[in-house]
């Protein structure tokens, strides 16, 4: 069983963290992963940095640019993760734009992920339709989950379609926006979370984009199976460093 599914079995509400590999420092990937696991985080999304991250807000853009400037590459990341499963047992998801993956070679990329022990991929600019038609087969071959996004604007029929062919979880974008921390969720958000919860989808949902603190995390997970924190974590990391990670996680739950 995929570690993602196992985790959902074990936990009522997941806390997942996103960071851009290679930022703040090129060699921070491992220390960050260890610190996150040790702090009780349930799952991690490792960002493969991209020059033109068009679904991301300023914080992740900046961390991405910085990581590239530090020398991060696909090859380098795989090197860093080579023996990751010696230490890390929580599910790991790679999050990256499609072009670098294409250039690496999609099959080669999937193969590598499997060999390392990556559990799944989130590719924001690979829509489910194209995935389904052209790439699913390869992903399946290497036992990689591919997770897809839904937003407040995603039509109901499409949500059901996504649900029907998803594995792992559905990445529920909290509001129509690029990534970026928000301080509060309002009634619109709650209504949307409720609406999706009421759809009783078969794939669990995790809320992402805009969770920044305990209150937004709580609100997000009231109706879903978990929350992903990205920008807020990256900002914290930049300010307080890897050693302070447990502090951040404790502030969330």
């Amino acid at each position, binding site marked *: 069983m995929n570690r993602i599914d196992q985790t959902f079995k074990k936990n009522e509400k997941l806390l997942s963290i996103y960071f851009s590999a290679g930022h703040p420092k090129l060699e921070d990937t491992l220390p960050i992963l260890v610190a996150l696991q040790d702090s009780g985080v349930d799952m991690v999304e490792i960002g493969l940095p991209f020059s033109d991250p068009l679904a991301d807000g300023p914080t992740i*853009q900046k961390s991405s640019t910085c990581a590239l400037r530090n020398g991060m590459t696909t090859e380098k990341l795989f090197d860093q993760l080579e023996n990751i499963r010696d230490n890390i047992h929580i599910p790991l998801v790679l999050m990256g734009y499609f072009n670098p993956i294409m*250039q690496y070679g999609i099959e080669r990329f999937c193969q590598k992920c499997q060999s390392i022990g990556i559990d799944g991929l989130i590719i924001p600019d690979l*829509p489910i339709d194209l995935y389904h038609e052209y790439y699913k087969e390869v992903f399946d071959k290497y036992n990689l989950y591919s997770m897809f996004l839904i937003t407040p604007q995603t039509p109901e029929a499409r949500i059901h379609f996504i649900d029907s062919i998803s594995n792992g979880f559905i990445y529920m974008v909290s509001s129509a926006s690029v990534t970026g921390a928000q301080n509060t969720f309002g009634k619109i958000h709650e209504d949307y979370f409720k609406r999706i919860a009421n759809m009783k989808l078969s794939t669990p949902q995790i809320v992402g984009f805009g969770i920044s603190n305990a209150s937004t995390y709580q609100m997000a997970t009231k109706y879903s199976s978990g929350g992903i924190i990205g920008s807020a974590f990256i900002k914290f990391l930049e300010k307080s460093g890897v050693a302070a990670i447990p502090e951040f996680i404790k502030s969330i739950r």
Partner: protein
Amino acid sequence: MKYQVDEKGFYGDFGGAYIPEMLYPNVEELRQNYIQISESDSFKKEFQSLLTEYVGRPTPLYFAERLSEKYNTKIYLKREDLCHTGAHKVNNTIGQILMAKRLGKNRIIAETGAGQHGVATATVCALMGIECVIYMGSLDIQRQAPNVARMKMLGAEVKAAKSGSKTLKDATNEAIRDWINNPVDTHYIIGSVVGPHPYPDMVARFQSVISAETQAQLLEKENREYPDHVIACVGGGSNAAGLYYHFLDNLRVNIIAVEAAGKGIDSGASAATSALGKEGIIHGSKTLLMQTLDGQITEPYSISAGLDYPGVGPMHAHLFRSKRAEFISIPDQEAMDWGLTLSQMEGIIPAIETAHAFAVLDVKKFYPDEVIVFNCSGRGDKDLDTYIDHFKLK
């Protein structure tokens, strides 16, 4: 071989819609409706009427006598520089604003490089009384100052894109982010035949008026509906797509696409996508793309802001790979020289983008009885500072 888009949004291997889910509703709404709307009688009538009454179409197909004499061949200029706002770009923005209205949108965003598309977008928004936000790379804001001023006069908000190379690519990223953030009431008017399907096809259709007119005008002037060569510069490729459109399947017509070599193809400062690019994904479309081995998009360079883009539209990638079109790249210096030559031989100051196309005359030999149509895609008013600096005309 088929050169038009297929049902799935591909030109051969290229195209598609590689977009974040957040854009799905908007792009899908457009995909489902663009043909039906743009083929409707009421749309066609309104589109055609604005092209005629407002843009000033048809633009002349001008026989360049002095140039023809010098190069001993028959040279025609399709005068898109005479369009309202000074370039072909407005053909597309007129089409898209009508599309946006029919889709019930009340806010427009756009990216711009040279500023021509930004001005053309701001213009149609003013015409329709619709809010308008233009993204422009902060470097381009500097080097195309007159167009920035025009956008502001027209009431548009100009937002600087400060990431990456601070040029067109980055402005496009910012526009896409805006669209993600404003998914309901906003239409994104893309300015070239790039972006996710159906944009490349939609924009090419709106621009195809260029070749439709060219056919009619050639019939009158040369007694046949097609030239021997069509030549256009390619940034994203919209003016080229417009000129090629009705000739794509006519194999008697030789298609020449001119890219910006910048400081030279091997200089590391170039925008010659076909020479330097590999298959990849940019702004939602699979196409040829300048990138590192690792798949990071390269910062392109050209002296002309409108060609300073690391990709080309998927139609052009297909024309290149299928060898239907001949791709030539022209360095800054030669383009600039042609800007001056065209000014002083024909009294037409071209946009620097446009000037690239003409440099083909020094690269390729044409025969005396051949008919060549150049797309005179835009006028050079926006580039005066660059010309003046370059030629020390002050």
